[in-house]
């Protein structure tokens, strides 16, 4: 059966969203555990993020008495936008769960929506740390976004479409020939900004509780109880979205191309393996690198845009 059949579409939607929501906390657990092991610490269990979420879920939130209604609404919008992105990125199959709703530009737009609302909510309580986190987050994101779109533009130039499922299908059809030097440059460019976007070393330290070094955590400082659970789940899901984007564009192999039991099993297995591999890579980075000074970041993130532009120039002027 083709992927566009109603039963197949429903299966992909349910399985992908369940996989994303189900394993997002696990990925964070794996990253943290690997980082600890590489630093000769024992580290928390890989299941600890689930326990944290359950604990926060049951707690009464404490809200600043000077906050506006945004503090309550923001977690819902941020998580909703992130789940919407999961519905658009083809992680499991060569088809988006909500096919036709959006392309890679829409995914970038949904991430920006989440960032906008979260940064505003961070300002709401009036603490300096929230302002600091929001200010740095939006500043870094403005250097990240050109890198993301330019590295994806390399692939758009080759594929002639911005539709992610279409790009993934063309990638699978190309086979090993997909890994051209141009594409590898673009993948490197995307990799750099993906680290920044997911908030890992050397851009941000996800484990820090030293206020002056926090970026993403600084924005969550005033959130508590169920709201903290929603926002944490959203940031864990963001890793799934970014890794899914990377996989759909640069390594689409293994995704479901037809609606059969073996293909579905393979698709779920490969998607899970890719996510775990990415979580391990982030853990290794966290353990192995020191955080860069914030003023040194334009160099690193600008490198991403430069690599992508080099790839585009190669695509335009070098014979294929």
């Amino acid at each position: 059966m083709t992927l566009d059949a109603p039963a197949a579409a429903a299966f992909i939607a349910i399985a992908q969203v369940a996989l994303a929501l189900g394993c997002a906390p696990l990925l964070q657990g794996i990253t943290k555990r690997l980082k600890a092991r590489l630093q000769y610490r024992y580290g928390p269990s890989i299941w600890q993020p689930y326990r944290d979420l359950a604990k926060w879920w049951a707690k009464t939130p404490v809200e600043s008495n000077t906050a506006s209604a945004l503090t309550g609404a923001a977690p819902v919008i941020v998580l909703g936008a992130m789940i919407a992105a999961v519905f658009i990125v083809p992680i499991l199959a060569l088809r988006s769960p909500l096919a036709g709703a959006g392309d890679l530009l829409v995914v970038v737009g949904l991430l920006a929506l989440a960032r906008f609302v979260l940064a505003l909510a961070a300002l709401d309580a009036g603490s300096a740390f929230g302002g600091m986190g929001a200010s740095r987050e939006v500043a870094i994101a403005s250097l990240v976004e050109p890198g993301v779109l330019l590295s994806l533009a390399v692939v758009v130039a080759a594929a002639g479409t911005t539709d992610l499922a279409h790009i993934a299908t063309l990638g699978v059809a190309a086979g090993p020939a997909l890994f051209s030097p141009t594409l590898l440059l673009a993948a490197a460019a995307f990799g750099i900004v993906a680290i920044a976007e997911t908030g890992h070393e050397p851009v941000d330290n996800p484990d820090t509780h030293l206020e002056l070094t926090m970026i993403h955590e600084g924005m969550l400082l005033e959130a508590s109880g169920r709201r903290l659970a929603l926002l944490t789940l959203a940031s864990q899901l963001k890793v799934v979205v970014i890794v899914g984007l990377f996989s759909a564009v640069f390594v689409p192999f293994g995704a479901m191309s037809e609606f059969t039991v073996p293909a579905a099993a393979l698709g779920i297995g490969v998607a899970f393996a890719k996510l775990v591999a990415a979580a391990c890579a982030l853990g290794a980075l966290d353990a192995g690198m020191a955080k860069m000074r914030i003023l040194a970041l334009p160099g690193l993130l600008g490198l991403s845009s430069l690599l992508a532009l080099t790839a585009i120039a190669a695509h335009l002027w070098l014979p294929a």
Partner: protein
Amino acid sequence: MVPADIEWLATVSLSAAVLLSALGAVLALARVDHRAAMIAAAAACAACGIGGVAVLAGPIVELRFGVVLGYPLLDLRIDALSGAFLVALGAVGLAASVYGVGNHDAGRSRLDTVAYIVFLVSLGLVFGSASAFSFLFAWELMALSSAVLVVGPRPDRSMVRASYIYLAMTHLATAAIAIAFAICSAVAGSLDFADWVVSAGTFGGLTRDVVFLLILVGFGTKAGMIPLHIWLPRAHPVAPSHVSALMSGVMIKAGIYGFIRFGIDVLGAGPAWWGGVVLAIGAGSAVLGVLYALAEHDLKRLLAFHSVENIGIILLGVGVAMLGMTAGAQPLVVLGLAAALFHTLNHALFKALLFLGAGAVQAAAHTRDLNRLGGLARSMPVTALAFGLGAAAISGLPPLNGFASEWLVFQGLLTVGGDAGIDPVARFGGYVAVGALALTAALAVACFVKATGMTFLALPRTAEAAGAREVGRLMRGAMIGLAASCVALGVAAGPVGAVFAAVARDMTSTADSIPAAALVAPQTIGAYNPALLSVGLAALLAGVFAIARLGARPARLAPTWVCGILPEPAFEYTATSFSKPLRMFFEPILRPARELQVELHEGTPFPRRVSYRSEVDHLIESRVYGPVHRASIAFAQLARRLQQGTLQLYLAYIVGAVIVLLLVARR
């Protein structure tokens, strides 16, 4: 409706708009309450908007008034392109006029109300004019009436200075346009735009290039593109907010209208460098506009710099269309023009909304300085919600209207990059513009987090901000209406984009190469279904909200934790501190200068007063306009030597001039 009905509706509503604005002018001149005139203006704008929508469906309405010596003073021919701009004028004008009725210091004087109505009428005439004389008349009327509104009845130094710079720049624009028109009418032998379209093919190559550059300078100045933008951030903030809304929302679009009308409709396909120049100016305006906005902490100046940014985004769409025309790629022309026209309408709506919001903040808190505001979301919830929606829309966030048109611009740029028929350098330029637009979009998010957060969230930073009260019903209504239209255009972006694509197709296609059904979606290289995404996102938000509510206990209220002492506004991040990382990232462009002064208590190390001042250097002003300004002053000093005030000297000048003339005539 059948075509005849639509044509009837268009004619009737556009005529009604003319009559209602005449009524408004009479009411404003008569000694009655200024609100009566403003209500007439609102009705005229509503009629104009309806007429614009009707015209978009295809009919062309022709109206002529006041024929003097064979030249009609007002010669109107309203086609679909005019309609696209009349819709923006109608929507923004309606909201601004309703807001003006509710805003008590809006009708500051009779002259102001008259100028406001003349300004509205002149905008409509600019969009509808069919010949050079009528166009230039309306154009000057627009410039002068808006200058009256900028300077106001009780001007201070900054207002006078702003209006001088505005007048100087707007006349530079008019001069360039007048020369371009003179060339066109000389070559075509007619003042009628329709004749120019026909005879544009007979222009020589050099003539076309000169006309192109003249209209780029002329209309680009009015649009506020960099480097001709310097009047914009000065003039827009000092005008009353409902006038700022019209200036930023509609008047600068007259520049875009003129550029599309004469650069694309009249001149047609040009060499590739035309499109390349427009693309480069668009990208530069977008990035520099938003960077300068980030460095601002005056709410209205910040919004004015965002107009420069959005004009840049619109020009990117126009540049895409021009490159498409050069390459003969009709779908690309339609895509680029549809993106530009759609973003023009969207920017009109959300920028007007934001200026009205800024006006409401100023009316309530008596300041526009972001570092003196704060906490208004709790005292002004409706204004906060409307401003927040406008901020999200201008930041290009899905599923709002700003995202839909930016998506089209992205698609256009990526298609330029992928089109093998276009010069590789221009294709590479298309990709660089993708990067520039991505940077712009992300910086806009940063800037509007700052503007919204500093104004409406956390604790009020001053007593004025703490004492703010929500504005009146009409002002809120105007803002809600504009916010609702931003959401509606975002959700219905598919059909709306298709309408603009049809306008672009009818304007540029020589043959019926594209069937009527093939509109925006099939011409793009991506997939975005705004209605599906909106419904999906709404369902997800409702679902997450419902699950988060299950068995939830209400939040416990407590003061914000600030290390054990009571929170104070001084602990909050300010607008200046919020944008600090970006000021430092972009130091080579912004060149921030900071000045820190610490006064100590006598004989102690303890500070008594700390003052901090930070400003950025506007490179274009200091490096381009500065030398030009100094050179012209120096030239004027030299020229003064000719003026000695003695009668004999002037007689000698006259004798000399006569001799020179005789010698010239003798040859």
